[in-house]
């Protein structure tokens, strides 16, 4: 163990994780559950029924004021004017060189009030970035990290399960509602997630997290750790910051051009526009291994490129991942080879998603 657990932050659900038999690991400064019963079992629970994740390590930044929308339009890649009240939108935060500082969901809580969810490892960096660039705008930036616990309830049976505990209708996809959930008042319910399944994410007061956790698990949702969170997101090719996204890569090569609206003139937009118009040397593609083995983050691709995420797909039972490949080799169906710790493993480019539960 490289880090003493006494220095790690704990979520309000720490005792619930211990009681559920979680294996707790250090993650971005937090002591987080990586698994309870086992990654494959938890993964399958989310694909087939319902799972509950404690993602309270994720950060929140509130932007408030007459120019809140204009300010966010300046720093976020997407068109913030398109977020309706009680809406949600995905975007990236770029630096001046067009590199990705973070990928974020922003919820519009009111006309002049927005809440942006940050990755735990980037929260302090993001907050400093928000504050630095807010100086020219009539806005206030509030660090809300300590004011929210965050839970995700995901899976085909998750919406019905949560709806029974809520005092109103759940919001549709990419919308939010403020409801009482399991008696926890003023819980922000968002139709978002990181699994490719139906479900919601809840932002609630830290003191309310345990009553929601208890009610949701009693109603049949299985606790799911960060291990299955990673395999679930990778099967549907959602990006993970620090793996697939970094300050050294831009959103175009990462396949996130769809959430970049350069006409809004966000910071880094000129570089992003040039990358879109001229192409990029490499692009991020999903792949499967066509033989045995599992590729991992950092494995080099023969002929150029690198694996940024790799795991075993619990649903497909083969090695899957995402890799930056030379752009001309990134076409679905193209075979390539990965150097997995000295062994050459055959792979093939695929299209997104690698797994879909909604196949007809």
């Amino acid at each position, binding site marked *: 163990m490289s880090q003493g657990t006494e220095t790690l932050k704990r979520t309000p659900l720490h005792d619930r994780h211990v009681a559920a038999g979680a*294996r707790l690991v250090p993650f971005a400064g937090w002591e987080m559950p*990586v*698994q309870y019963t*086992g*990654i*494959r079992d938890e993964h399958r629970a989310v694909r087939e029924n319902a799972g509950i994740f404690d993602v309270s390590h994720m950060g929140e930044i509130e932007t408030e004021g007459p120019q809140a929308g204009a300010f966010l339009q300046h720093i976020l890649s997407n068109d913030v004017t398109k977020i309706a009240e009680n809406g949600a939108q995905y975007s990236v935060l770029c630096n001046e060189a067009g590199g990705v500082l973070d990928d974020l969901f922003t919820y519009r809580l009111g006309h002049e009030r927005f809440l942006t969810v940050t990755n735990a490892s980037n929260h302090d960096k993001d907050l400093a970035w928000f504050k630095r660039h807010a100086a020219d705008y009539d806005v206030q930036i509030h660090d809300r990290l300590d004011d929210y616990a965050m839970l995700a309830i995901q899976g085909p049976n998750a919406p019905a399960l949560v709806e029974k505990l809520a005092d109103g209708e759940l919001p549709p996809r990419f919308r939010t509602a403020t409801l009482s959930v399991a008696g926890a008042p003023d819980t922000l319910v968002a139709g978002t997630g990181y699994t490719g399944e139906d479900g919601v994410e809840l932002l609630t007061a830290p003191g309310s997290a345990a009553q929601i956790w208890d009610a949701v698990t009693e109603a049949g949702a299985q606790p799911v750790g960060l*291990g299955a969170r*990673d*395999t679930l997101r990778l099967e549907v090719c959602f990006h993970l910051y620090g793996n697939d996204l970094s300050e050294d890569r831009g959103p175009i090569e990462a396949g996130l051009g769809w959430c970049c609206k350069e006409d809004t003139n966000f910071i880094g937009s000129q570089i992003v526009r040039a990358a879109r118009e001229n192409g990029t040397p490499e692009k991020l593609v999903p792949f499967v291994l066509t033989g*045995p*083995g*599992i590729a*991992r983050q950092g494995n080099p691709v023969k002929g150029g490129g690198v694996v940024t995420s790799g*795991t*075993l797909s*619990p649903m497909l039972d083969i090695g899957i991942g995402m890799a930056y490949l030379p752009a001309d080799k990134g076409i679905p169906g193209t075979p390539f080879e990965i150097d997995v*710790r000295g*062994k050459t493993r055959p792979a093939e480019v695929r299209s997104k998603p690698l797994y879909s539960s909604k196949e007809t």
Partner: protein
Amino acid sequence: MAEASYPSDVKYHQDHDWARIEGDTATFGITWYAQDQLGEVVFFDPPAVGATVSKDQPYAEVESVKAVSDVIAPLSGEVTEVNEGLGSSPENVNEDPYGEGWMVKVRLSDPSEVDSLMDADAYEESLT
């Protein structure tokens, strides 16, 4: 298997490997503690039959969903057999680490190395 288990018919290496010694041959595997730390084993990449393994050096890889780990040889010798069954049932490493989850059989090149291994009590003590 849910409960920790350290049988007394095998010898233990500090890197959480075991050796069941029979004359000048031995069977290798990983301990209950090792498989518990790994989580569900989903892939075993064995050495070739005939490969030379050296005490304290990696001779195979074992992968859980989350990570890959080297498997360390508790003793030196030549691989005479690998557990082909782990190709289709890698979960045997978790379910039966000292039985169906064995990894290789080795003809020992220096049986005196056995003296450096721990018995079950000493190994269990080392885990605390």
